[in-house]
């Protein structure tokens, strides 16, 4: 099976967000593989081990993204592809990302494409379904279980807490939800091996695209932090009185009861 994983490099979940000159400051921040993409990488490796084939991890980013690709290779992926847009594109949106990926997949043979169901930074969750639509293949989002049986694929997906059992077929794109698996940590031999695994670097030029082909149709005007919350009130006294006071405050002051 030819398995591809769409990966994004994101801020570590521990990071606080700082805004400098109207942009989110990246200097000094820790970056990780988007947590939902880790589920995708892990599942891809498990499916390859079961069915044979090859796992290729693809990312769109800059040369810094190589680190996360090497981590994916150390986990067990076979190949990595970095589509480096740093020098070519300033503004991007989901249309940009989808068009680049569509061009990348144009001459590829793929059975299964896995992605995270959402990236924890911009959180649009659009790219997976958008790409599947461009490629003309079915997709299933927020999956928590997948079994491949010949050309038939049995999937369980999380739908706002309910479990939906879905049957579909290959080729297919899925987006991964928490609960799908427990992503492994790269082992030391894995890390050593990863250094020698192929990591191809492309620019949009190599995909026969130029800036105009991937022009975004939405634009961010500004980013801002939520208003600082004022410190709240810690209640005091006997527990029974505290509870009574809380109910009274929720009712008359906060007006939520």
């Amino acid at each position, binding site marked *: 099976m030819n398995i591809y994983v769409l990966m994004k490099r994101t801020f570590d979940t521990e990071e606080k967000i700082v805004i400098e000159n109207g942009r989110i400051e990246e200097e000094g921040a820790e970056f990780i593989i988007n947590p939902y993409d880790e589920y995708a990488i892990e599942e891809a490796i498990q499916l390859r081990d079961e069915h044979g084939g090859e796992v290729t991890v693809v990312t769109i980013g800059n040369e810094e993204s190589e680190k996360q690709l090497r981590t994916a290779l150390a986990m067990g992926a076979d190949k990595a592809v970095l589509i480096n847009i740093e020098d070519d594109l300033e503004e991007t949106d989901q249309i940009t990302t989808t068009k680049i990926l569509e061009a990348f997949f144009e001459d590829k043979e793929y059975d299964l494409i896995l992605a995270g169901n959402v990236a924890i930074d911009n959180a649009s969750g*659009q790219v997976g379904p*958008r790409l599947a639509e461009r490629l003309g293949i079915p997709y299933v989002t927020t999956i928590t279980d997948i079994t491949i049986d010949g050309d038939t694929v049995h999937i369980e997906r999380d739908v706002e807490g309910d479990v939906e059992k879905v049957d579909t077929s290959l080729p297919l794109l899925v987006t991964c939800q*928490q609960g799908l698996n427990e992503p492994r940590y790269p082992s030391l031999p894995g890390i050593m091996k990863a250094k020698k695994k192929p990591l191809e670097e492309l620019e949009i030029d190599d995909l026969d695209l130029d800036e105009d082909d991937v*022009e975004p149709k939405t*634009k961010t005007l500004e980013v801002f932090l939520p208003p600082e919350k004022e410190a709240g009130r810690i209640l005091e006294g006997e527990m029974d009185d505290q509870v009574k006071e809380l*109910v009274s405050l929720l009712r008359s002051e906060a007006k939520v009861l």
Partner: protein
Amino acid sequence: MGKKLLVIGEVRDGALRNVSFEAVAAARKINEDGEVVAALFGEGNLEQLGNEMIYYGADRAVVVQHENLKNYTSEGYAQAAMAVIEDENPEGIIMGHTAQGKDLTPKIASRLESGLISDATDIEVDGDDVVFTRPIYSGKAFEKKVVTEGLLFATIRPNNIAPLDRDDTRSGEVAVKDVEIKDLRTVIKDIIRKTTEGVDLSEAKVIVAGGRGVKSADGFKPLEELAEVLGGAVGASRGACDAGYCDYSLQIGQTGKVVTPDLYIACGISGAIQHLAGMSNSKVIVAINKDPEANIFNVADYGIVGDLFEVVPKLTEEIKKLKENA
């Protein structure tokens, strides 16, 4: 401005989800003088629900009824949606940012080669410009975004844009559109309902959430009782999910759900930054924790330092009393 906007409503168990009305209100806000057309897809007779969309502010409604629309699939619903979009040729589309909205709208946007602004929590109209506010980094920051070309296409986060008052004196045409829904490559074999209370986390007005302090799966019982008297839903921190006390579908945080209820009651939750990202934009936050130094108190409006197993049942009793006397 005289635009025509399409609102895709969402039917669940034969009723409209509240976010459908919020989407109508959002479209009205963008489009005070223009036309708002509601679209509904499903099985069986949806005409009355079409009227309901009109009572909440739509001018007219189009419903597509087909046995293959009984369960949501992106392919089936996209066929229905594309047929309506081709007929109506709207200048914008608004839908709720729900499981269905998240799954369906990127497909339609991709088909139409349109931009899509997902998960808007606020909309400002400034002359011809429509500015959407949306959370990024799970609510650690926000961005203001506009469409620069093509369709004004957005999904709105439930519980953020207030619906208009229901007015059943409003009337408008409800058209039934025939669309052949076929060639579906994904088939729903079964749906296992786990959300027994029927209150979805993303739409809940009240959430009672538990963390590691809940200590066990049984420990969630008092939280469930409190949620029940408040008509709310139960949520959890990652700690509680990782410890196996509850299902991951309840997880609130940077991984998991991002919620903005009117009232969030955090029980035995320390308040890791990843959890705060998922809930700190709730309107009113109550924290109950044994540890007075817990970070959760920094975002809480009201805090009680104490054992949740003592505090939560007392709180349930007090609220019961209040509801009985009301």
